[in-house]
């Protein structure tokens, strides 16, 4: 049976310059059970219905010319494996975007699971590991804590590409709405 997958999404940033190399669309998945103390996004934890998108309609709606990639964050993207896979396939094949996925699971654990391995095939860079508040990343590397690892699953990027211009990005929309994102926050 062929039915459409719907991704439960917490939020989307059409263009961010701090969530990985270059300008990127960022999709925050809803739902996470990992309970990392001090997590930046507790609002994304509950497994409640937020906004549903089919993978293709999501990228189609928020795509802006000039972006080089898609970053998937959350929440925990691997709790919605089918949607995640289709989103990454569409990003790569329909739009030519590079793909970066943040996850609280370890690469080893994901590699042991056939459905997760299928997702890794469409992932250029996986940033794995739970957030550890005691080991907060002090440099401009695009990760929350130093235990998290960058896995370069294609030859598209190296660690140097994940050194950002800053820790925080404020995006002020034409109507004055401010979106704050990054690997630290202004209190």
């Amino acid at each position, binding site marked *: 049976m062929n039915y459409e997958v719907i991704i439960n999404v917490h939020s989307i940033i059409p263009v961010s310059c701090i969530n990985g190399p270059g300008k990127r669309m960022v999709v925050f998945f809803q739902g996470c059970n990992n309970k990392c103390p001090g997590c930046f996004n507790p609002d994304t934890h509950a497994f409640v219905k937020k906004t549903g998108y089919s993978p293709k309609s999501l990228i189609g709606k928020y795509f802006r010319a000039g972006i080089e990639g898609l970053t998937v964050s959350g929440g925990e993207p691997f709790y919605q494996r089918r949607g995640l896979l289709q989103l990454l396939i569409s990003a790569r094949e329909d739009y030519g975007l590079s793909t970066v996925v943040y996850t609280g699971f370890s690469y080893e654990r994901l590699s042991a699971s056939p459905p997760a391995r299928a997702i890794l095939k469409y992932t250029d860079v996986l940033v794995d590991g739970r957030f550890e508040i005691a080991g907060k990343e002090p440099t401009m590397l695009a990760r929350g804590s130093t235990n998290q690892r960058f896995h370069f699953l294609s030859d598209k990027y190296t660690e140097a590409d994940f050194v950002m211009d800053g820790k*925080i990005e404020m*995006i002020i929309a034409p109507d004055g709405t401010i979106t704050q994102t990054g690997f630290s926050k202004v209190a």
Partner: protein
Amino acid sequence: MSFYCVIKTELSRKKYVIAALAEMQRKGEITNYSVSQTKDKIEVDRDGEVVTVSRTKEAANYEIGGISRPAREISDRIKQLYAYESIKDNLPLDFEISKETEEAGEIHITLKG
């Protein structure tokens, strides 16, 4: 996972409203603005289209009045530049701006800290 939050901008402080209007005038987006000496009110002129920025009491936010299209356009731009001015003015001491860009109508500010 990176941090994500959204903040709606309200026009609560006169100094940032005026800073936003001054910037709009400098960029030629409005013709002129005049601040009333007696009321909490600013008149904004954009090529003959006049809108007002006012509030009835000090605890309230400023609201934009006038013909709906210019009022909405001017209101949005004031809010955007108000947000920009207030972010710059209220940065904690341990943060500094490392990059600023304006593209597709959005202002991106990157902070080191």
